[in-house]
């Protein structure tokens, strides 16, 4: 028991890395995904086509393969990223595709009557977007987005396979030293659960409230 308590600071360090990676990925993929998602919902075909291609490509490949590709594959063509950066780039590439889809879906599920009604009262394109479409889309966006934050935290565990000492790898290292496997895995699971469960619960509540 004492050894387990001694390992806690180490695990907490790992947890912080997990949270850092997750936060970076979420923020970056919102920056990438939101505008691209809007373009996919409203843009002309020539702008939609490459985005659709990108999103469909990324969603057809496992995250792990994307991670390997950025970490092991890019150096072969002389793009060398430090492992932490490579991990964030790969996870962001994946998450952006999801954000794009969620954004598009949020706008496209708004009945066309809303746009027509907004036009009928003489709103400009800009006003239609900011006062009618965006507020409604935001409500549809939030539940799946919060859910996808949970997926991000879970998916960030894969960076351990690139040697980044996140919660997952710090668990593995502690287990390697202490040979106490099952209890430590369970502690690790509970730590992930402690972060993710409130988010899942929030997502469900948002869904009940908004849908």
């Amino acid at each position, binding site marked *: 028991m004492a050894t387990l308590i001694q390992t806690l600071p180490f695990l907490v360090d790992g947890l912080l890395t997990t949270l850092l990676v997750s936060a970076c990925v979420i923020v970056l993929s919102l920056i990438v995904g939101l505008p691209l998602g809007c373009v996919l919902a409203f843009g002309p075909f020539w702008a939609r086509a490459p985005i659709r291609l990108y999103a469909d490509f990324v969603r057809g490949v496992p995250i792990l393969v994307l991670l390997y*590709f950025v970490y*092991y594959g890019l150096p072969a063509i002389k793009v060398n990223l430090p492992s932490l950066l490579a991990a964030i780039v790969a996870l962001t590439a994946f998450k952006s595709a999801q954000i794009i889809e969620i954004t598009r879906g949020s706008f496209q599920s708004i009945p066309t009557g809303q746009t027509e009604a907004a036009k009928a009262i003489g709103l400009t394109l800009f006003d239609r977007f900011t006062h009618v479409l965006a507020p409604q889309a935001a409500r549809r966006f939030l539940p799946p987005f919060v859910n996808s934050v949970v997926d991000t935290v879970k998916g960030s565990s894969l960076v351990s396979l690139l040697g980044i000492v996140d919660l997952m790898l710090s668990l593995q290292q502690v287990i390697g030293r202490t040979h106490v496997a099952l209890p430590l895995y369970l502690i*690790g699971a509970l730590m992930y659960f402690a972060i993710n469960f409130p988010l899942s619960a929030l997502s469900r509540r948002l869904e009940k409230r908004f849908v």
Partner: protein
Amino acid sequence: MANYHFNFAIVWRYAGKLFEGLLLSLELAAASIAIGMAIGLVLALISLDGPKWARPLIAAYVEFVRNVPLLLLVYLVFYGIPSAIDLQYDAVTSFVATLSIYSGAYLVEVMRAGLEAVPRGLIEAGKAIGLTPMKVLWHVRLPTAMRIALPSLSNTYVSLFKDTSIASAIAVPELAYGMRWIETQTFRTVEVYLLATPIYLITSYAILLLLRLAERRYSIAR
């Protein structure tokens, strides 16, 4: 980038490894989905029609599994459990067990939503022609629920196929593992990815296409 010299010949020699890997990935996914569907269906029925006390237990299972990384569950089952109790199994068995439990947690929700969406009137119509509850379940509720759930099921199945790549973390020789293996043997990194990525892409979309066809074939437009 400009100076990279492609050499597919070396990688091609190992292509069989990728093919075997793909087959194993598909087998892992199929086995896990089959077991996961059984888990999902039974637990969905229990949480809808079963005793009240079972509901929090099922919710606990679903919430625990869905909020913990699959990689951690894979390690927990493969390294954690045999370290604590006297039970031995190989990596493939271990992974199938893990992915089944994992998929079950997602499929419970999908199937429950499907079963709940079966109109009450259909169940009454089943009763009115003299079907027992078991027969109503088998001939009316399940077929209707499956059709309602098909779109969600399709997405879940494709995700689970992609999730088989995580088996490479415990050295199960599936597609992602084969990919990494060839890479370390040949150092032809770019070629390996150019070959392996389309395999994942094509397979994912082939699965999705088949399921979409099934959706169209079996859809119950109302």
